């Protein structure tokens, strides 16, 4: 009896992510959710720009590559023209919270029936570790070598808190993947975000706190610890909106 194996919705292409990058875990959770709901044949993913730009190679379902930050807008078009299909976007913090803030906020505000997977690793991974809007105060990056100074670079964007101020979103949750227990919780949240769409409930966004060992300058194990000790206190985990449960 197989207890654990690679989900069918992931291809056999080796992922280009650095060793220990939790993108791989989150990809797997998305694929497991697709497998569990049996929606692989009618799912269309929208890949973003950033480290996750190549995710169209890794998912077995159809994928579209959106311009930088525009994944929720592309997903809106796909969902409206093909309402029977399940549309998800997979975006990093540079894509969703920087260049794509407008698209994200408006798609959420309109309550589009799409699923957004937001991977927050507090840094621009693909371009070499510059400060992201989600970098923590005091965090050392390539562009903030003395630490992020909030008087100059401002405060981090907290996406779940930001969107929870809108009436449009149906489901907002922030999860982490720093321990096996957290991974299980993250899987539940991602599956719920997909199930909401299948049931036609509306806009669902799951923010996953992720790691970037290469650009944080830590080993994979140390970076999980850094995520636990620094990111989780600043970005509290939990459900920020669940209209489905309120009714």
């Amino acid at each position, binding site marked *: *009896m*197989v*207890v*654990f*194996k*690679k*989900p069918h919705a*992931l291809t056999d292409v*080796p*992922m280009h*992510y*650095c*060793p*220990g*990058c*939790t*993108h*791989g*875990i989150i990809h*797997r959770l998305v694929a497991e959710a697709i497998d569990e709901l049996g929606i692989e044949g009618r799912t269309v993913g929208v890949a973003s720009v950033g480290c996750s730009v190549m995710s169209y190679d890794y998912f077995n379902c159809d994928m579209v590559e959106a311009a930088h930050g525009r994944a929720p807008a592309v997903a809106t078009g796909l969902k409206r023209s093909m309402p029977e299909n399940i549309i998800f976007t997979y975006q990093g913090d540079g894509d969703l919270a920087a260049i794509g803030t407008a698209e994200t906020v408006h798609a959420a505000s309109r309550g589009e029936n799409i699923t957004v997977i937001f991977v927050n690793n507090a840094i621009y991974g693909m371009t070499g570790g510059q400060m992201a809007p989600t970098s923590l105060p005091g965090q050392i990056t390539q562009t903030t070598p003395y630490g992020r100074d909030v008087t100059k670079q401002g405060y981090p964007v907290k996406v779940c808190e930001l969107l929870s101020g809108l009436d449009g979103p149906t489901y907002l949750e922030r999860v982490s993947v720093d*321990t*096996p227990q957290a*991974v*299980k919780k993250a899987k539940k949240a991602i599956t719920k975000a997909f199930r909401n769409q299948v049931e036609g409930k509306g806009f669902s966004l799951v923010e996953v706190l992720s790691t970037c*060992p290469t650009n944080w300058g830590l*080993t*994979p*194990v140390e970076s*999980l610890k850094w995520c636990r000790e620094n990111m989780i206190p600043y970005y509290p985990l939990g459900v920020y909106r669940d209209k489905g449960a309120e009714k």
Partner: protein
Amino acid sequence: MPNVIIDPNSCKGCGLCVSVCPKKIIKMSEDKINKKGMHYAVMTDSQKCIGCTFCALMCPDCVITITKDDEESDGHV
């Protein structure tokens, strides 16, 4: 009995599986490297494995497959 199958050539050697194993029975290979040039994860004592799947849950590259022997079969999965 749980059976942990690690694909050595897909492993990137990040060591996350080693860090979460409650029985401390997964180690990185010391003298061998795989096709990627990495030290890969190896199961050292499968008798002690409790089949918790933590290693597989934390593996970013789906390197680990876990099976359990069916009780009614002759031990082969």
